[in-house]
């Protein structure tokens, strides 16, 4: 069976890099004694695939990886076994059984990500400024690709952008087609207020990863947990 595991990565684990996070979960799964499936060959590894790498320094409440198991185990049991072996800062918050085909592969289906960004420093925020920012038809920012720097219009990749409680929240394009990080969005907003990135510091938390509800449905998204889910009633959720 294939399951999708949702986890959070909080203070102080934001400093653990992506590869080390993967290695960490491999050990958790072994300690939890779950009947994980292995690849063939001389150095077999656990069949798991992480949805999207999270940059060092960012926390998250919406990380995912897909895991293959040799035997059927209930989602609740998987969550409980894993939780018993997690260290502070990591938590498993949901588990769902998903279809075993490439179409629903966590890495492939990601289309958007939501972020909560708190700012320390001086950056004026009012509803008016935000709507003024969003009214722009183009937002050209300098983006570095492998070979060159080029001006790119990021406006089409920002689906929502606003202020909630004590920070910005946004829904932006993510995944293999167009991956927009939250920093250039805030920087573009700040630039409009005449504030340079040196004047503030960002605390970024990724809150969810999304797939398109059906192919081409953007900006109509569903959380990754629900994408390819086989049995809604068997889903473990907190």
């Amino acid at each position, binding site marked *: 069976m294939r399951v999708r595991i949702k986890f959070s990565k909080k*203070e*102080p*684990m934001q*400093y*653990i*890099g992506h*590869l*080390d*996070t993967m*290695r*960490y979960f*491999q*050990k*958790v*799964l*072994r*300690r939890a*004694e779950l009947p994980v499936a*292995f690849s063939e060959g*001389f*150095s*077999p*590894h656990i069949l798991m695939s992480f949805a999207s790498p999270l940059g*060092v*320094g960012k926390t998250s409440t919406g990380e995912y990886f897909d895991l293959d198991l040799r035997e059927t185990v209930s989602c609740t049991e998987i969550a409980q076994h894993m939780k018993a*072996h997690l*260290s*502070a*800062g990591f938590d498993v918050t949901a588990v769902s059984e998903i279809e075993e085909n490439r179409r629903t592969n966590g890495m492939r289906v990601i289309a958007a990500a939501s972020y909560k960004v708190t700012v320390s420093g001086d950056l004026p925020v009012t509803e008016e400024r935000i709507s003024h920012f969003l009214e722009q038809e183009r937002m050209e920012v300098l983006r570095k690709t492998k070979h060159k720097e080029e001006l790119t219009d990021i406006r089409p990749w920002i689906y929502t952008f606003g202020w909630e409680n004590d920070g910005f929240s946004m829904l932006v394009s993510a995944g293999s087609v167009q991956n927009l990080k939250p920093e250039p969005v805030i920087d573009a907003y700040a630039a409009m207020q005449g504030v340079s990135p040196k004047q503030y*510091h960002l*605390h970024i938390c990724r809150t969810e990863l999304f797939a398109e509800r059906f192919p081409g449905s953007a900006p109509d998204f569903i959380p990754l947990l629900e994408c390819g889910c086989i049995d809604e009633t068997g889903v473990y959720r907190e």
Partner: protein
Amino acid sequence: MKKTLALPEDILMQIEKPERYIGHEVNAVIKENSEDMIRFAMCFPDVYEIGMSHLGIQILYDMFNKEPDVWCERVYSPWPDLEAVMRERHIPLFALESQDPVKIFDFLGITIQFEMCYTNILQVLELSGIPLRSEDRTAEDPFVIGGGPCTYNPEPLAPFFDMFYIGEGEVSYPALLDLYRKWKNSSAPREEFLREAANVPGIYVPSLYSCTYAEDGTLSSFYPTVSGIPETIEKQAVTDLNKAIYPEKPVIPYLQATQDRVVLEIMRGCIRGCRFCQAGMIYRPLRQKSISRLKELAYRMLMETGYDEISLSSLSSSDYSHLEELLDYLIDVCSEKKINISLPSLRIDAFSLDVMSKVQDVKKSSLTFAPEAGTQRMRDVINKGLTEDDILHGCREAFRGGWNKVKLYFMLGLPFETEEDIRGIAHLCQRVAEEYYEIPKENRNGKISINASSSFFVPKPFTPFQWASMNTEEEFLDKARIVKEEVRSQLNQKSIRYTYHHAGISILEGVLARGDRRVADVIETVYRNGARFDAWSEYFDLEKWHDAFETCGIDPYFYTKRERDVTELLPWDFIRCGVTKQFLIREWERARSGVVTPNCREQCSGCGCAALGGGICHARED
């Protein structure tokens, strides 16, 4: 609320690998702090990934933390990028678990595994805000205690430590802690504790000893300066390893450590008695863990850690009496759970090849031999019980089994070495290649690749070669050139790659290994001039060391090149490490005449370690 991390976010985001400094690893021990808590900071003076791979600290960490009123935490050397920031922003060095400054701890224990970390020790002290020299410390400072193999000659570091622990930590720490509890509740001065500690077996308090030098610069006397403390320090050794504590739940780093696997210590000590090898002498006698204990430990550790690899640890795993049974068990458990078995330090023979072909990918793995010397005569001098026949036979078997990569380790500059021995390294490589090409072409697995490397011999205390003259850098490099040239004139030279170690580092290692108290000034001077991470070639700066020798008026050749007479008082003679001086002298003489000495299983050679109790010298091995 107490902040979680000692370093603020902006620093953690600007330095390399912030995971080195945040602690919070799985199985890290967090205790509720209290007034009575004895805080012990355990330091490996190198970067996190290296330090986290060290078994000794994991054992002591586990042992200390089993005491309800002791909280042992870990400290590693900050990488130079962080050191610069800490200095600029006045951030003191902290321990990983509590993230509290080291300065507030009761003890700072430093394990001293190799000579080239000496400058890092001073870095740790200075960044902690602890005076470098014991004499300048006050009630505000922790007691700084050193342990590990380099403390078998602690003298070059003597002024920087309050105490040294000579031997295996499992034995005397309980007594030292008891003494500390009593002292902590009294209002007695710091000196009082040190004075009392000097009577705990294995504890050496350097400030309570003094020495004089003769006109020729050699040591003329070494003595305690107060009465009522011992004149000699006895090495402490565990007698029954089955009863010794072993960390079943070792701390598991997030950052990939050099040793990223379960490490199963199967025995301590070595029966072989290679004359260049300090570990083979100071860890005597051989003590094995029982097969039942090892099976239990292996299983538990794999379950508790979730590692996907297990490695056996010992000086010579092939000498473990129940190796076959242990490996059968491991192969069983590990194949089911898809766990790798890594087998370092195995003698290459039919048995080990069979095991290796079961657990490793033959195409990827290479065979390792450590002949150490190129000719049989030289191997007899160093008492390396490995014959050319063993090597060639092992290779033949392996080549038939599909292997085509061989690593060969040698040493240059061994005592009584001749040019024939040096050239012999190339000849041995050639004969290994010939073994390969004797196999019919259709059964060969491509081309043979032979990687030969040589290190430069550094005489170490408590070995039969402790009196030997060490080569100069030029001599080392000349010898390496001879090998290189000889390799090039071999028929199969294209299959042989020859490399050699940094000669300058070896020279310094030589000074520090057999130095006396006067060398401490050099270490401090070079540290003040910026030397750090000398074991890392990207930071090692030989010029800085040359300058320091000059500034301090110390001649490095006095410590390296000079052959000592066996009657000379050596700086480490006050330590009793088990093997007696008479035995070492006997072995030195036998080396001179190229006579081998049987290993401990064949015949007892009366090295003196029987007096330590336990191990192969006493009970029949189980």
